[in-house]
């Protein structure tokens, strides 16, 4: 369980997040949505430690982790999939998964995680994580690196951004599977109705504050009316 208490973040005299109070329970799948610039990514990055809040505290399983760094939080079970997957020179998919799992692994182990994100492992294990991979491939590898951590809190920052329709379809299946199997907290920043539809709870952020939290039954009509989300027509 992770709890944000009175979290605010001010940048260049602008309030990006304004007194956020939020409790995320284990086994639940949360979708965090809202208009661009509402503070979604900032909120997620604050949980991972990528951004330090101006005020407020973060409590994780009863412990105050506000002043813990990224490494500590990662080793406590928090994981974060970047919206723009990071590219490297020379580091391969196998290397990245090995770093994520943090022990000696063989190709079979790596393949298991690649298969989870719908990539044919033998084609990808030795590939370098650089521009030779498409946006969709990079995104799936990014997600695989988070799944390989077996996290207690898994955060995905707009996993659908910048990927093609085909990738989106299989991405959706990954999250459906995650919703069923993950015992920890899953938090996905998304604009997509198909991912919102999987969520146990939807959090709507607007102007740095939580406008409303509720089940998809309550939230979807409100969100769709306000055009916060998009529908991908892939039929």
């Amino acid at each position, binding site marked *: 369980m992770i709890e944000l208490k009175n979290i605010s973040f001010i940048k260049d005299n602008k309030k990006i997040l304004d007194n956020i109070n939020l409790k995320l329970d284990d086994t639940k799948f949360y979708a965090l949505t809202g208009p661009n610039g509402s503070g979604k990514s900032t909120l997620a990055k604050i949980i991972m430690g990528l951004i330090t809040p101006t005020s407020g505290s973060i409590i994780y399983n009863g412990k105050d982790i506000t002043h813990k760094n990224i490494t500590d939080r990662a080793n406590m079970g928090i994981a974060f999939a970047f919206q723009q997957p990071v590219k490297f020179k020379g580091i391969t998919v196998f290397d990245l998964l090995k*770093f994520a799992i943090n022990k000696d692994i063989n190709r079979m182990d790596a393949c298991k995680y690649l298969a989870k994100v719908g990539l044919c492992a033998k084609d990808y294990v030795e590939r370098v994580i650089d521009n030779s991979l498409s946006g969709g491939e990079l995104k799936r590898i990014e997600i695989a690196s988070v799944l390989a951590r077996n996290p207690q809190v898994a955060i995905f920052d707009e996993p659908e951004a910048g990927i093609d329709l085909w990738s989106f379809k299989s991405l959706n299946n990954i999250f459906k599977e995650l919703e069923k199997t993950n015992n920890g907290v899953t938090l996905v920043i998304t604009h997509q109705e198909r991912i919102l539809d999987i969520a146990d709870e939807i959090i709507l952020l607007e102007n740095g504050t939580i406008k409303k939290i509720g089940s998809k039954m309550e939230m979807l009509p409100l969100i769709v009316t306000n055009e916060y989300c998009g529908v991908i027509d892939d039929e």
Partner: protein
Amino acid sequence: MMNKIADKLLSVLEQSNYEEADAYNIRVDGISIKRKVSPYIEIESKTDKNGINVYIKDDTKFGIVHIPVLLSKSGLKDVVYNDFYIGKNANVIILAGCGIHNDLHSDSEHDGIHRFFLSENATVKYTEKHYGEGSGNGKRILNPTTEIYMKKGSSMNMVTTQIKGVDDTFRKTVAELDQNATLVINEKILTNNANIAKTEFNIELNGEDSSTHVVSRSVATDSSYQEFISKVTGNTKCYARVECDAILKDNGNVLAIPEIYAKSVDANLIHEASIGKIAGEQLLKLMSLGMSEKEAEEAIIKGFLK
């Protein structure tokens, strides 16, 4: 006699298994101490100066030759001239390299001048690794020169690696390519302390459809200095791509000077150079996988120089 220092240097140079090769020549402190030849690979000592001639017969398939040089005596300056004559259609792997161990206060230096003469359709994979160690303040200096002359249809893949501990190095590579010849060079350098490393490539693409791809990846740490000069001249229909990529750490400095000269309207020459510190987002990603900042930095550099 081989000693423990030489054994260790061989191991760092990844040449401990030299005895399994078809042919080898082991040079320790300025003297060839061990040699093996095969029916396809002949090695002879030069009579006019230090060094060896290596002859690879026509049509030799998958020959392997080791020619490591080890220096363990402080104050020794070893200059060696090695020539390689690669026969038609031969396919060979040549593993060179120099390890210097200097515990005292005089400078130790090895200047290796290697010339490669590739006959038609010959294929060479040449790897050269340089390493320095020792507790003395005597410098460890390595100045390799490589000259490559490539006949029609031949190809060469040259991989050079300089890992820590070499104080001064000036690497010079000159190549001339005939029709359809292909030269691929991968250079990796890591400098630390006050090391100075200069590399200069001068490649002439003389034959139609000849091509070259030079990739230099370097990391300059502490207060070390690196210089990368590449000159590629396209005299006919040809293709060249030169990539220089450097990571800076601490107070490391890197100067990259690209020079591509197209003397034919059909020459297609590309140069890319980038120098900078490790991207912050790369560190953050690896830290989000549980690594400390230092571990992340090491992993990124290791991958970069892989």
